[in-house]
């Protein structure tokens, strides 16, 4: 099995790949990047928490016109994972309004972005219909 690296550092690649957030220990606000202080309450103490890997689509768009080099079409979405909002693409679904619906149930899925010269495979994530 080749070495793997996640697309972003908040994607944790273990037996059950999942997302991880920095949670403010004072108010519970969650952030996918690092914060010097909590944007909600200014607390400075954070802990790592696992984000649920299933949720429902709260918003989406089907992007058919993007920057050069970005393959289209793709579905960009906001997924409500039991109270934590997550940004990600909807994958393993036809990118059209007949197949993508507001409120549809989805779950986290990973896919390969390819292998570099060192033999390291990058792993991305998206959400697929549950």
């Amino acid at each position, binding site marked *: 099995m080749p070495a793997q690296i996640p697309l972003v550092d908040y994607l944790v690649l273990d037996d059950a790949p999942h997302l991880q957030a920095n949670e403010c220990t004072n108010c519970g606000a*969650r952030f996918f990047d690092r914060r010097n202080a909590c944007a909600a309450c200014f607390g400075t103490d954070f802990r790592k928490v696992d984000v649920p890997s299933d949720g429902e689509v709260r918003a989406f768009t089907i992007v058919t016109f993007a920057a050069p080099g970005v393959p289209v079409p793709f579905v960009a979405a*906001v997924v409500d994972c039991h109270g934590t909002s997550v940004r990600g693409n909807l994958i393993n679904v036809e990118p059209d*309004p007949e197949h993508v619906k507001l409120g549809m149930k989805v779950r986290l899925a990973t896919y390969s972005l390819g292998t570099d010269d060192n033999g390291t495979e990058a792993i991305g994530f998206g959400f697929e219909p549950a």
Partner: protein
Amino acid sequence: MADDIYILGITMTKFGKHPDKDTVDLAAEAAMGALKDAGVSMRDMGVLAAGCLMGQGGIGQQIQKQIGQTGIPVYNVANACATGATALRTAIMAVKAGECDMGLAVGVEKLAGAGLLGAGGRAKSDKKEWSPAGRFGAVTPTDGRIGTDTMPGTFAQIGMEYGHKYGGTSFELFAKISEKNHAHSTLNPLAAYTKRMSLEEIMNDVMISYPNTRPMCSANCDGAAAAVVVSGSKLKTMSLEQQRRAVKVSASVLTSDPWQEACQVLPDVNTLTRIAATKAYEQSGVSPQDLDLVELHDCFATAELVHYDNLQLCEEGGAVDFFNSGATWRDGSTPVNVSGGLESKGHPIAATGIANIWEVCHHLRGEAGDRQIEGAKVGLAHVIGLGSACGVHILEKSALG
């Protein structure tokens, strides 16, 4: 008690393609137009605030060198699409603080042919080694892999989110909003596009980011707008004609995002707009029902819908019914974007937050010609700069008018 503030003079250039003019030319044209409209000169200005978001910086000083250097303080401001409103608000604050009794605000942009905004692009995929970089430790650009950075896509999701929360939205509904604004634009000679488009034409045009087709997106174009503000006490010393044409700034509000759960994931244009509107209604004593016209930030058709609600033009959750009632057409109860809006008038970013005030002033002064909203006495202008900054101004016709 701080003095009242009035718009003494205001102008916008024709929006569209200006291949023979640079940003300084356009800004100077707008600034001199506003001074002339106000009946004053650069000598009378105590402060200059200016913005050109995509420029190299220092637009304020460049304007001075073009039209008059008097040594006054210059504030070069940048606040995304709210840059123009921020420049105006800066001039207003200086006058309100008593540092001077008149100020000039200018916004200018050259965007004709700029294409897709927000897309950062990505490195060529000949990468030989995955190497984490940036705040998320990303091994490759995330635009298109983890959602979209494009403006059409971002604002599409904002409209869809409203639909998920309250129901009633559809591709056709959003296209109908665009149909209204394109219809309104036919009466605006300064709009970049003045072509009426049928619902079918709009829906069958190039899809950019579902449900926004190309005519449902703001039009990139060149343009500038400028305003002269004056204190109420200074205005009293001026001519009756100046006093008659002056427009009272009954509220001037700028807000940023208070923290909300999802704001790091999808920009929240709702909360800060709702707060700005609430503050503006409190400051002015005006209620949403009093408004004779509204210019709001329809950077995309999907955005206009949510701002009906955020500006409290309708009941919470009632934006779809409100639009379907015909209220926001120019002959409706609350005409919205009678200028044609950003979708047809155009959106030269830093000019937009002054150009929308010009539109409202034009009607309050009874000078809007074919598109005049008869008897207009009070109006509201709104802009959003993603990131976010929201400007809301409430304007009232002069008591002398």
